[in-house]
């Protein structure tokens, strides 16, 4: 059985790592045929690309803020106070899974036309619809966390000790469900950085749209930046501990 295990692992690893290796290879080719980081350096010579990357990073930040200050408190609030709405919120949060991006953009394009005329033309307005896309993932990791900790009792304990609603939500409940919130945040970053469908069809210049554009003329740069994004998200995921699994040890000691 060990042979099978190893074989499968090697084959899958090969298939998955091959394109990444190819990206590394492709992006380090230079015109003169020698190895070089020309493509990588060229990234910084593309102002449109740089500004698009900034836009995407800013969008990620705004989406995380929306998630942190709007989605998470709402889900927690419903969990604590409005159990009857739980089903409704669950359906809403999982709805984006049933609505492909390409369909959502059809419905949302008229709204964004209105927004660009009456509010702002900035691509940062995309954050609103992006936060819809991340809902299923944040909801899932949140509800896993909420179900593993007795949030009700903690909230009530905080209240009887004198905590206001704000302090209870942000000082007690949120830190307790930290791991769920964090993993939701990381997925949100990955999603926002990788989003193309909505931004391209709504004519905004996000990172992916620019990469696609640059790729038409300079493949090396496109590949280099794609590889960089991949590594960035990978490092994020590894660096942030997403499962803080503390088993409570039941010590049956006598009272000291």
């Amino acid at each position: 059985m060990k042979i099978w295990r190893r074989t499968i692992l090697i084959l899958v690893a090969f298939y998955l790592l091959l394109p990444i290796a190819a990206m590394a290879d492709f992006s380090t080719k230079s015109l003169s045929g020698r190895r070089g980081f020309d493509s990588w350096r060229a990234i910084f010579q593309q102002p449109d690309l740089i500004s698009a990357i900034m836009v995407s990073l800013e969008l990620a930040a705004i989406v995380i803020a929306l998630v942190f200050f709007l989605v998470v408190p709402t889900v927690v609030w419903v969990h604590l106070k409005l159990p009857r709405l739980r089903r409704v919120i669950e359906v809403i949060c999982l709805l984006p899974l049933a609505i492909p991006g390409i369909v959502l953009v059809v419905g949302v394009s008229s709204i964004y036309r209105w927004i660009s005329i009456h509010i702002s033309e900035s691509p940062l307005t995309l954050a609103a619809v992006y936060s819809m896309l991340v809902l299923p993932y944040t909801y899932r990791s949140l509800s896993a966390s909420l179900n593993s900790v007795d949030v009700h009792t903690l909230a009530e304990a905080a209240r009887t000790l004198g905590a206001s609603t704000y302090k209870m939500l942000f000082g007690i409940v949120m830190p307790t469900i930290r791991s769920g919130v964090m993993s939701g945040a990381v997925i949100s970053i990955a999603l926002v950085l990788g989003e193309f469908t909505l931004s391209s069809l709504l004519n905004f210049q996000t990172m992916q749209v620019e990469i696609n554009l640059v790729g038409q003329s300079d493949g090396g740069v496109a590949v280099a930046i794609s590889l960089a994004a991949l590594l960035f998200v990978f490092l994020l995921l590894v660096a942030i501990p997403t499962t803080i699994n503390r088993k409570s040890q039941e010590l049956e000691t006598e009272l000291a």
Partner: protein
Amino acid sequence: MNETSGVKFVSAISKGSSASVKLIDIAKSFGQVKALAGLTIEIGPGELVALLGPSGCGKTTALRALAGLQDLDRGQILVDDKDITYLAASRRNMGMVFQSYSLFPHMSALANVEYGLTLKAHKTSSDLRAAKGKELLELVGLSSHARHFPHQLSGGQQQRIALARALAISPQVLLLDEPLSALDAKVRTQLRDEIRRIQLEVGTTTVFVTHDQEEALGIADRVGVMRNGILEQIAAPAELYDRPATAFVAEFVGLTNQILGNVSNGVIEILGVKVPTLAGSISSGAGIALVRPETLKIIPNPTGSGRIFAASFLGASCRLTIDLPNHSRIVAQVPSSDAAQLGAGANVDVSFRSNPIFVKPVE
């Protein structure tokens, strides 16, 4: 445990910590279910009152209403004669200890204890806060665990930290919602005495909810027995035990034997002995007497009418299950020293001391 703690803590903690509590005709229904059906209780300053009853009797609902975590359909709550019925939970200054899992997992034991004080940081200096936290940890005997996190503490230790945390805010009333139910039997007994000791030292008015009658009788000044949202009887433990006011109280508190007999003129004849009935019993006709096991006298007699079916050694006492000639079975509790010759199969005479007993109607 540090027994020399005593006096010096009381000064730091007990300021303003004993208020009188009045629950006046409080009621709450959840849909069709009446959790509270008009409960009225008065609790004096510094008293420890236990609310005892089976699950669903409303004791927890009453406690949570007092804490402000449960709104009521009707009724008033007065603390020191001030109407706090509509006051928010965070403003009632009542310390609450929950059944389990109420310590904030991301904070150390000390931080948990100090939490109520850090919320009022603008009113207390940080030195005072630290001193109070330290004293409370010593009061519950967990100074050495100040930096430990809840998951590193045992269940009993966690509840002691929860108690310290509740006391840290110098509450007017201390509320305990079945704090021992989730713990092991041995830890339960030790911690229950601890809680009483601390409560007496600090002097806070306390309401203790439990379904365990041994617990309630063991530590309370008065015990209120509840059923279906109303109070059946509230009295000191001994009175509750010896003079139950209703059949339910008689059966819920302590063990009882059910023996058939006939009542006339306030006296019932059972096992050949005439015994006076308690107030609340039926006045005449056939009834079921609720007899406490320890009031039965068991005398070894080879020709006796009763026969021991089984004997359980409980340490200080012995529980004997005895078959009677009329095919009924009763349980008697005798000191182990008296039970030396009494084993399964022995014949005995059964009679009993003439304490007044409660007689309920035959169903």
